[in-house]
């Protein structure tokens, strides 16, 4: 699913550099990436998603060289093929849960908002246990409900790859295990691949593979 070769990236402002000689993630794998703060985990997610561009090297997602795509094509690829789950959920408080889930469909022409999508959104919310909250504003939900809504938003376009950046970082211990289970279940059901950045070592045994970011950079994680 993900294939990285000789990746080189740097922030010119602060001298930060990221080099990954080789790395790949097979389809369907649930991979956890750990590492100290500031080591470049979020930068890696941004590179994979095509938000940031590498200085050199290759990044392929499902055979598509993301870094070679033009801006518009890269955005379309991201919104259709990659689902993002953020630590702070990043839901829009002024929209209902349903509208938050449908939001990606309303900001791009690459996704078509059809009655079928709406039906799928309701089903997905039901599976995630927030089916009865669809008309409530996102700001009115509990932390756990917000993360479920954020996962629903990421999964609704049926992406091939889910990128989760500290997705359970703001949840209490009970909620984080439950949400992770739901995320895994949904990923399995959709046949997606999961790459999750986390600090939480308690969750690591649940993943198929865990990679320390330092191994990543040395190439031994490949």
């Amino acid at each position: 699913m993900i294939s990285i070769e000789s990746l080189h990236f740097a922030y010119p402002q602060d001298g930060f550099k990221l080099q990954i000689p080789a790395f790949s993630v097979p389809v369907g794998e649930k991979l956890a990436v750990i590492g100290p703060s500031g080591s470049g985990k979020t930068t890696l997610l941004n590179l994979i998603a095509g938000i940031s561009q590498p200085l050199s090297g290759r990044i392929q997602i499902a055979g598509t060289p993301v870094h070679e795509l033009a801006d518009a094509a890269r955005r379309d690829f991201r919104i259709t093929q990659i689902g993002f789950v953020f630590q702070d959920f990043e839901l829009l408080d002024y929209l209902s849960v349903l509208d938050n889930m449908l939001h990606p469909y309303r900001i791009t022409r690459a996704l078509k908002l059809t009655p079928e999508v709406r039906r799928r959104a309701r089903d997905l919310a039901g599976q995630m246990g927030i089916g009865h909250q669809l008309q409530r504003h996102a700001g009115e939900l509990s932390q756990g409900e917000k993360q479920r809504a954020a996962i629903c938003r990421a999964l609704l376009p049926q992406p091939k790859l889910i990128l989760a950046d500290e997705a359970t970082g703001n949840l209490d211990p009970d909620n984080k295990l439950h949400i992770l289970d739901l995320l895994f279940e949904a990923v399995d059901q959709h046949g997606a691949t999961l790459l999750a950045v986390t600090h939480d070592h308690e969750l690591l045994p649940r993943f198929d593979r865990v990679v320390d970011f330092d191994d990543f950079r040395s190439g031994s994680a490949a």
Partner: protein
Amino acid sequence: MIDSFYIAWKYLLFGKARSATLVACITLIAVLPLALEIILDESEHQLVERAEHTPLLVGAKGSALDLVMNSLYFADEVPQPVTLASAEEIAATDLAFAIPLYVRFQARGFPIVGTTLDYFDFRQLRLAAGTPFGLLGECVIGAAVARQIGLKPGDSLLSSPETVFDLAGVYPLKMRVAGVLAPSHSADDLAVLVDVKTAWVIEGLVHGHEDVARSRDSSVIIERSESNVTANAKLMQYTEITEANIEAFHLHGDPAGYPLTAVIALPHDDKAAAILRGRYQDTETPYQIVPPADVIDTLITNIFRIRNVLDAVILFVGLATLMALVLVFGLSLRLRQREIDTIFKLGCSRLTIAQLLGAEIVIIAALSAVLCLLILSVVAHYDQQLVRALFI
């Protein structure tokens, strides 16, 4: 599909108070100058049209503006009175036709205009219902008066005392509504027209009371002689003129000395007008003769000067408000930076983000425009009343 307006609408709906404040600010900026324009145009139209149709006005020396405003638009400021003799003098010159006016009293807040039936022809007033006033104590009410206080021919209307505590002053007179005028879109719509003698009844110059000669009430009669009977204030004064008591109404003194507030002079031609004006040039005469159009022209010039100042003030206030709105919008963009970053990360282009924010501005502007149009249409609908309330 990019549904920027849906998302923008949801955002604005979520912050109703903030959105309403923005809409109100923009609406006010737009409405103030436009509404002022409508009202000033209407005031100019009303003032000029009526003034141009009134050739000359004779009144006591003093403020020409007060004289014109009272005589043409029935404004509250009552000029010094002239006498009925002055109207008769004008008629006697054979240079002009004279219509007396006595505009001093009010009935339920509407001016009572004492005049003659010639006034109806002069102003081309049509009756929508009833008949013109024929008997003492009858009145014809303007269309707006009829609408606002719900009167029709046959109903009664009480004149208002000038001051509540002046017991020796003007008594209220219960007038019978003889007719209702068709709307004329002028000051006459808001007037109560009566015969000038009825106005004198209200003032007490013409009055009716029980027959003192027949009265045997010793508490009323102070002194009785063969030629004269003196009564005290206990004598019952009639406050309504009916068929039964109309004969009891009588004048005291010489009617030539009875008061008028003005006389409308309608010269037969330009030459007659010039001669008539010449006769009132004498500094010794207690009267003045004014062409209302000239007086109103001066007034309009002053109004336009004030209008220019107001326009400038509104422009500066508008600019300051717009700058404040730009600042508010800029600050809100900074507050929403995280939201913008999220949308971008999801796969939205910068252009679409600008489109989303632009849709919010378009909706706010559209709501303001609709509200502005609504207010302006209300202002335009009631412009005559507003002009009368604000300027005349």
